[in-house]
């Protein structure tokens, strides 16, 4: 990361944040636009979940990480507290690596 990249990301993010409070008396986003913004955030996050769980560089990440993510993911879907889900994922992956699973 460079200062410039962080600055552009931070500046752009702040611009998104400040538009509503600054302009709310003048414009209104359509329902379609709001909805697409929400869904694209979800789509991008899911793509990151999938790629960071399954891949490393251009290849497969090995079994330990996906197994940990699966354990934590099941807990999260079962509505376990966030910290429990994260801890389970980390512990599962660490334990598998300790046992020699890559």
């Amino acid at each position, binding site marked *: 990361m460079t200062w410039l990249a962080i600055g552009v990301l931070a500046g752009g*993010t702040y611009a998104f944040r400040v538009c509503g409070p600054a302009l709310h008396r003048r414009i209104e986003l359509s329902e379609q636009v709001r909805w697409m913004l929400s869904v694209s955030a979800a789509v991008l996050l899911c*793509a990151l979940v999938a790629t960071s769980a399954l891949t490393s560089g251009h290849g497969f990440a090995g079994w330990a990480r996906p197994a940990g993510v699966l354990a934590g993911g099941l807990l999260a879907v079962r509505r376990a507290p966030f910290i429990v889900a994260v801890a389970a994922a*980390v512990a599962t992956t660490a334990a598998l690596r300790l046992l020699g699973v890559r």
Partner: protein
Amino acid sequence: MFIIPVMRSFWRTLDRLLRHGTGPGRVPHGTGPDRALLRGTGRARPFLRGTGPGRLLAHGTGLDRALLRDIGLVALADGVVGVSFGAIAVSGGQPAWVPLAMSPTVFAGGAQFAALYIVLGGGGLTAAVVAGLVLNARLLPFGFAVADVLDLRWPARLLGSHLVLDESVAFALAQRDPARRRAAFFACGALLFVVWNLGTLLGVLAGRAAGNPETLGLDAASPIVLLALVLPALRDPRARRAALLGAAIAVAGTPFLPGGLPVLLALLGLAAAGRPGPGRRNASRPDAGRPDSGGPGSGGPGSGARIRSRAEGRA
């Protein structure tokens, strides 16, 4: 796997305990940013359903202890995400100033992680910035949703805008009384700002001491963080379709495409989302929100309001 039923009953009991005596929840009024997405979602996560801001309205005005406790829980979870952000950044080879500069200025968990992963995965800076900005585009409607809360004099408005997060917006929208809305928004936003940055600092310090994060299983934490941020949004079937297709596209493209690009290509999954159907509007669950955790924004840390809150948060 015996832990799942155990955790479930524990969580239900906790949920019931926390709910005790707070009376029926009231319908949040705002036209929340996530409402469109969450229309027709099945169940809210218990954190918000049971103890969420809506239920807290039964107590007079002002920030009561129950509301502060809820905000504190989200802050605690976000602090942990902040720690993992700092640790993952430095153990991935980034200099310490990178996470320390990103957390106060970007202040959005999902986007910070996204940009970091793309850079750590060898992707270009442009892809990292674009992915982060696309993730944060949801803050635009969020800002409109809390514009009344921030209808203050310009210095306060400009400063308060930086606290627009999944979580702070979710807490604010669940309050009916304008004073409480504002109090909840600023309390949540300010507390998350503090814990997010403290957490990042702790993570930077710990990450350097930690050595190889893969030995500790730290690489499995990040997908779960993002998953927790995004889960509430996936209860909408159209969003779920789009997300699954997008994830499949991203994974399929990873062996062949430069880093960062597969994730951006996931936006093709939006084709599966269709349009917001008019029939779904009435199916809206008012108490659904970004309940849990994750960094601020995110969808974030946990976002996602987070989260969570939850949604998405999360940052």
